[in-house]
């Protein structure tokens, strides 16, 4: 394809729950290899927007595109299921509460989806698990169950599980919010490593320092709208919008 299009593109995303409008006509695009942070007060719609990208929370209207394909294409039910399952294989997601499968070992958590969906052999699956777990520094815990891991370790396994599908895009939904403060750093380090490897990432976060140090672009959302966006040095140091200023000031006070 000669035509150029943004790697990830959200067009006029709108979502309502009954009368409550949580996303109000949001459009944004992300280039390949870019790392974008979405910040904003709780209830601003940032998680909803993130979860709309892989259609976990379907939009009321609007389009989501990834690498030239529409994610939330309108199709008959059965066809849509096949389509979305294929699209989701290309979009990794990491949750606030890890959502590891507690009945499976770390190895099985990582290999279940590739074995099921890519029909790889047990041997290939083992190699894949070892490679991905080594990448997040969790190789020694390969045969542990999630219940035997700390929060930070769980989240690193969850990242490995998502990466094992070789996604084109990674979504992080407050990946460190549920962690004890001393465990945040180990997860941040893994995310930084991914950034250095030019993984395209969209990160919903409350950690301004992390967003400032890793991200190419920061998007500030409030009440279902993108209020301000730009490089972190601009948004954090010289926000133009009053709402951004108020939010950042409050956040700074909260951090102290």
């Amino acid at each position, binding site marked *: 394809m000669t035509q150029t299009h943004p790697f990830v593109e959200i067009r006029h995303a709108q979502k309502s729950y009954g009368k409550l409008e949580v996303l109000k006509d949001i459009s944004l695009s992300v280039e390949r290899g870019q790392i974008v942070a979405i910040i904003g007060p709780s209830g601003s719609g940032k998680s909803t927007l993130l979860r709309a990208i892989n259609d976990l929370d379907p939009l009321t209207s609007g389009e989501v595109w990834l690498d030239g394909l529409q994610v939330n294409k309108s199709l008959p039910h059965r066809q849509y*299921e096949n389509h979305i399952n294929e699209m989701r*294989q290309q979009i990794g997601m990491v949750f606030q509460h890890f*959502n*590891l*499968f507690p009945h499976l070992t770390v190895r099985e958590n990582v290999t279940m989806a590739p074995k099921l969906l890519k029909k790889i052999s047990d041997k290939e699956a083992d190699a894949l698990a070892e490679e991905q777990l080594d990448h997040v520094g969790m190789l020694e815990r390969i045969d542990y169950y999630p219940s035997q891991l700390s929060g930070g370790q769980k989240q690193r396994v969850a990242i490995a599980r998502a990466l094992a599908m070789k996604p084109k895009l990674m979504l992080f939904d407050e990946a460190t919010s549920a962690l004890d403060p001393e465990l945040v750093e180990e997860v941040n380090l893994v995310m930084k490593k991914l950034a250095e490897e030019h993984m395209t990432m969209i990160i919903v976060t409350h950690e301004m320092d992390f967003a400032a140090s890793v991200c190419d672009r920061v998007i500030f959302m409030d009440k279902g709208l993108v209020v301000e966006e730009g490089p972190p040095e601009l948004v954090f140091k010289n926000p133009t919008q009053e709402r951004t200023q108020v939010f950042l000031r409050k956040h700074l006070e909260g951090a102290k």
Partner: protein
Amino acid sequence: MGLDFSVIPPFYGTLALGVLWTIAITAASAVLSFFGGILLAVVALYGPLVVRLPFRFVAWLFMGTPLLLQLFLIYFGLAQIGVDLPAFVAGVIGLGFHYAVYNSELIQTAMVAVDKGQMEAARTLGLSRRQALMRVIVPQAVRDVLPPIGNNMIALLKDSALVSVIGVSELTLSAQLAIGRTYRPFEFYAAAAVLYYVINLGMEAVLRGFEKRNRLSR
């Protein structure tokens, strides 16, 4: 007439055969009730309405009527309309479905209680709903209700005595055969009771093994 347990040894073979049939019918019914219970639970929660309603009705039928009656209906009733099942098969179907309905109630409750994030994580990886149910939700639900399912299995073992009335020569019927020859009901019913208890102990050990294997994975 005093008690004389020396009448038992000549019937060791009969009783042993009865034990084997009891184990066989219990094991077959337990497997049917386990997988049937999973199937019923998944259909009850996720099936289309046209399937869900008849399933609901059959479940209600199995729960609301006596097991003995169900066995009669399956064995004698179906034979009348041309479905001539061997007594063993009729017994397994009756016991298996009866307990499948009970297991399904347990599994449904547990499936609903599995954290919503589990389904989300599975779907996010690209699994279909069916794959997510079978690989992620059902195993966790079953794991969570393994102890009460175990209790159902023990009840199933005890209820397996009911299939003696349709002529499966399991332990109770074997004891009755021996009594018919010796007129010694106390000795043989007591012997059968002891044997049921021993089978029960074996079954509990197996169930404990399953539960132990599941200890870490929660």
